[in-house]
């Protein structure tokens, strides 16, 4: 690798180059003092850019900045937001879909567990055992019928 090819690769973040490029650059740097010096310049410049912009921002009076932002947000934008604990729980579940999916499956899983339990204990109860398991809008019912257990999963709002 020559300096012209190495120069644009200098200052790459860890893992940013493909392994071949990284190996070639490493080998070049080991033997090329000017490119090592260029790399040192890049690192020095990074500090100056960050410090310079932060210093410049620190000099700016931002005491009314937040007021300006808040004034640009219409009051109606706050009124429509969900505020109650139930709404916040629903918003949380919307954002965590894995949890939401698990909660939706909970009635079916509970019904399956009950079915296995009844099967293991020999099903000596009444000829028709009805157990209802509900979670939010879903419900599952296990019917221990003469033809064997039957699991019904449906919408809990229908009053099954």
């Amino acid at each position, binding site marked *: 690798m*020559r*300096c*012209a090819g190495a*120069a*644009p*690769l*200098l*200052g*790459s*973040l860890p893992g*940013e180059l493909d392994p071949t490029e990284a190996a070639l650059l490493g080998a070049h740097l080991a033997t*090329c*003092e*000017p*490119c*090592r*010096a*260029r790399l*040192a*310049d*890049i*690192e*020095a*410049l*990074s*500090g*100056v*850019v*960050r*410090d*310079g*912009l*932060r*210093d*410049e*921002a*620190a000099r*700016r*009076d*931002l*005491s009314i*900045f*937040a*007021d*300006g*932002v*808040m004034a*640009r*947000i219409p009051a109606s*934008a*706050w*009124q*429509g*937001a*969900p*505020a109650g604990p139930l*709404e*916040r729980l629903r*918003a949380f579940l919307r*954002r965590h879909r894995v949890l939401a999916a698990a909660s939706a499956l909970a009635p079916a899983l509970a019904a399956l567990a009950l079915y296995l339990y009844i099967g293991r204990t020999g099903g000596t109860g009444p000829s028709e055992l009805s157990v209802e398991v509900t979670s939010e809008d879903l419900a599952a019912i296990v019917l221990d019928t003469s033809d064997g257990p039957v699991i019904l999963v449906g919408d809990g709002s229908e009053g099954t």
Partner: protein
Amino acid sequence: MNFPSVPPSLPMALSDLELVERARGGDPEAFRELVVRHQRRVYAVALGIVKDRDLAWDVSQEAFVRVHQHLAEFREESSFTTWLHRITARVAIDVLRKERPGRRSDVADVPEAVLQEAAPGVLATALGTNPQETMLRHELSARLTEALGELPDLHRAILVLREMDGLSYEELSLRLGIPKGTVMSRLFHARKKMQALLAGYAGIDAPGRGNAR
């Protein structure tokens, strides 16, 4: 610094995500606290890209307004800071394009002659060995905005997003809509130009021309 005081209704130790959650729930004070917490860094990034202080103010405010508009879509896989800075960069780059419609964003590369003016290592050596290193660094920092103003728009945006936000070549490529190789090349040229400018401001003598093989 003049940070507004935190409203008494908000505990001081709330994390960004907790404040986001409250803001989503309709709490304006929580959102205000997010603004106050991040405004200075957002302003620094915006200033670095658009280089004009008043424009940077407008860009920063617009970024926060957009953040509020899209709070419901924020996914917690990335940090709030990363998301906020992404939006800031997008707003700043859009403003650059609108402000200079007749100007090509892919300005020609820095001439070779400029690249050869400063010898490699001059800046690092001066900052690393000068007994008044802190003063020199302070002096260079004070003139940084001026130096950034000398760069073509796209070079400046690449350099600032790389140094302030640590964006990868891939992210810069996606954000700016240019190939990764072009990002790398322009970042190199932007750095060289900045080093030459800062060395000039600091009166650092270049001991000779850069060596290249």
